[in-house]
């Protein structure tokens, strides 16, 4: 009963859009409603989903991070180079990449908070820096041939007539973890409070500085993890990977009902946004109309959602 409150309407709208899209596609196309398609929805975009989870934390806190695409691109070439050319064990390469991503995020967060700078600008600088670093590592694509890497990327659990791959499992585990942290930890609630009203949060005695730095550190971690998921999916690294991906990530989060102004949103919503994004691309694939239509549809949907949020916002 109280679930159908004003605050939940954006989430319900997102769920309704997903159901409508998926339902209509299932009626139009044979074989759309199948385990293959559902598995594909996740595995093709798992890196995007992982990044969207990190972005959700940032946007909930009232911030933004434009550097995610660049950090993902950097991570793919960094990991691929470490494994192939430096002959690191994949485990070590992944650990190093995750640490680098986390520290990078934390550094941006600290810059934003302590110098009172707009997140938009600091992370824009972060975007250029990370992308430059990616090309600094190497100019072209690097293939990964490594037994451990193949073993891990081959991990899967059966699902219907097909299976769910490792990167999908990674995404889902991260999703559940972050949803729990958001709902059941003081940190998660502090993120929402800061996104809701940073000044009030400070006056209420919440650890604002620590929380904000942690938010960007978590997103840096997620970007690195998304980069690793990408290398696992593509078996290679490339400095041009994920250019402009930050905008897809932000679109997924906003379609998922998280307010760009912060303080309102959920990880369930981000999952739904992620599935809508994937479903639209699947539909264009089935209808054989080219991905331009998908991009147009996402643009229209994004506009519809921000209009809806504005109409529903409490005055």
């Amino acid at each position, binding site marked *: 009963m109280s679930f159908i409150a004003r605050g939940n309407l954006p989430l319900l709208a997102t769920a309704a859009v997903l159901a409508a899209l998926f339902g209509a596609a299932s009626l139009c196309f044979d074989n759309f409603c199948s385990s293959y398609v559902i598995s594909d929805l996740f595995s093709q975009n798992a890196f995007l989903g992982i990044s969207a989870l990190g972005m959700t934390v940032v946007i909930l806190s009232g911030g933004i991070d434009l550097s995610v695409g660049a950090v993902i691109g950097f991570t793919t070439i960094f990991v691929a180079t470490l494994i192939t050319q430096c002959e690191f064990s994949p485990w070590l390469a992944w650990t190093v990449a995750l640490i680098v991503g986390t520290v990078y995020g934390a550094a941006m967060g600290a810059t934003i908070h302590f110098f009172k700078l707009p997140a938009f600008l600091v992370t824009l600088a972060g975007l250029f820096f990370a992308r430059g670093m990616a090309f600094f590592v190497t100019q072209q694509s690097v293939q990964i041939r490594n037994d451990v890497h193949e073993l891990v990327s081959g991990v899967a659990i059966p699902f219907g007539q097909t299976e769910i791959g490792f990167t999908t499992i990674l995404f889902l585990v991260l999703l559940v973890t972050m949803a729990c942290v958001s709902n059941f*930890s003081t940190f998660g609630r502090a993120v929402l409070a800061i996104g*809701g009203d940073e000044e009030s949060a400070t006056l209420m005695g919440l650890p604002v500085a620590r929380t904000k730095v942690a938010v960007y550190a978590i997103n840096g971690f997620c970007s690195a993890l998304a980069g690793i998921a990408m290398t696992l999916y593509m078996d290679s690294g490339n400095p041009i990977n994920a250019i402009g991906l930050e905008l897809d990530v932000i679109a997924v989060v906003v379609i998922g009902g998280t307010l760009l102004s912060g303080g309102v949103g959920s990880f369930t919503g981000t999952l739904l946004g992620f599935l809508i994004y994937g479903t639209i691309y699947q539909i264009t694939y089935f209808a054989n109309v080219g991905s331009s239509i998908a991009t147009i549809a996402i643009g229209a949907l994004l506009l519809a959602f921000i209009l809806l949020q504005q109409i529903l916002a409490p005055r």
Partner: protein
Amino acid sequence: MPTLTKPILKIHNLRKQFPGVLALDGVDFELTAGEVHALMGENGAGKSTLIKVLTGVHPRDSGRVELDGQTIAPTSPSAAEGLGISTVFQEVNLIPRLSVAENILLGRQPKNAIGAIDWKTLYQMATQTLTRLGVELDVRKQLAEYSIAIAQMVAIARGIALDAKVLILDEPTSSLDEKEVTHLFTVMERLRNEGMAIVFVTHFLDQVYRISDRITVLRNGRLVGTWPTGELERLDLVEHMLGRKVPQLSAQRVGSAAVPSSKISAKPVVKAQGLGRRGSVHPFDLEIFPGEVVGLAGLLGSGRSEVGRLIFGFDSATTGTLEVGGNQVVNWSPRKAIDAGIAWCPEDRKLDGVIPQLSVRENIVLALQSARSIFHPLSRAKQNEIAQRYVAQLGIKTTSLETTVGTLSGGNQQKVLLARWLAMEPKLIILDEPTRGIDVGAKAEIENLVAELSAAGVAVLLISSELEDLARCCSRVVVLRDRRIVAALDPSSDLEQNALDESAIMKLIAHHND
């Protein structure tokens, strides 16, 4: 009345200097458990600074603060909360999009065995805290779904959930209606009976006499005194706040503001009937005739500016009707008000008035140009002519018409703003605190100008806290108290009480209709 025992909070010789102003100058203050202690004073008296120093927002320069016999020096509001001093600020610092319960317990949520937030216990604790205040509501709902009054209760609940010994309420009633104020007072009484020491900062005299046990008055950063509420007459309180004695006042009228003869024959420029806005001003009747200078008097927060805002259409009325030039208006807005010949010089010229980066000329023709639309630009020659005329008429001291306004003195900025509106040739001009913060000479010029305008048939609504100025300039003074028009001093119609002077205004500000 509580028994006045040993004080729980003792402030001794507190001093705080800000650049250019001594905000607190050796202030002493004592607070006892189980009392509601009103802290009063006009703008710049030092109330806010006192509270901010007490709660660790600002460091103090010197002096001592003792809580329960221990010297304390909190460095942040949360540190003060930890010591037992909770503050509810006027703007209610909570998170609207979180639940009521979370707002009460944010930062100290109960946890279960594995360290996760225990929502069930959290909701129970929040409900219990609110029950202690006599408030019942669904603590799971978003705070944004409730009124500002409830938000205030929630803020108080947050304050006392931490076993506060001292609760500071900074102008808690300024956006509440009558019923909500009563509810808040019930809560305050409950807490007082439990032994809470409450500091109540407010501008509303009636409320002070309804709820407080003692009153402390500050003025210009100094302590004027502390009195038991029962032993301080209202008039004395107002005198202490304003800093002058009624009998010593000179009732000299300097201005030329004669009551215009047109008043009987002419139609009023504006006529408000039962006009009011919930939570802002109680419904009032007001007529302003051409050539009349009507003063609005009252303490800070009494609703003076709000009356002006309603007439200008800044705020929309929730009750009553407004007639302008004999026609009843609907969907009143500043744009329509300007079209109808009403001008407004706001109180804070920096915030709502002059644009400091633009030149004197640009500032003066701004309103006139915008009224003409971009398709009918004023020629540069015409602009210069208009600007030149008002610079001369008002004696604006500027090196040229192209000087940026930001470089002028405060008084001259005020005059530029006035010139902008005069260029519109208004029928009614609303001046909100036109003489605040400008020197005596500039003040006299503005007063003379008001007289000139009046002579030229322009109606003036003068909002001022300078009773002297009101007494000098106005043909009629309307007095507000606690957001209600309580009386009008009108020498032309009121034969018995025809003295329009400072002491008469002051008495009306202080007293009930008794």
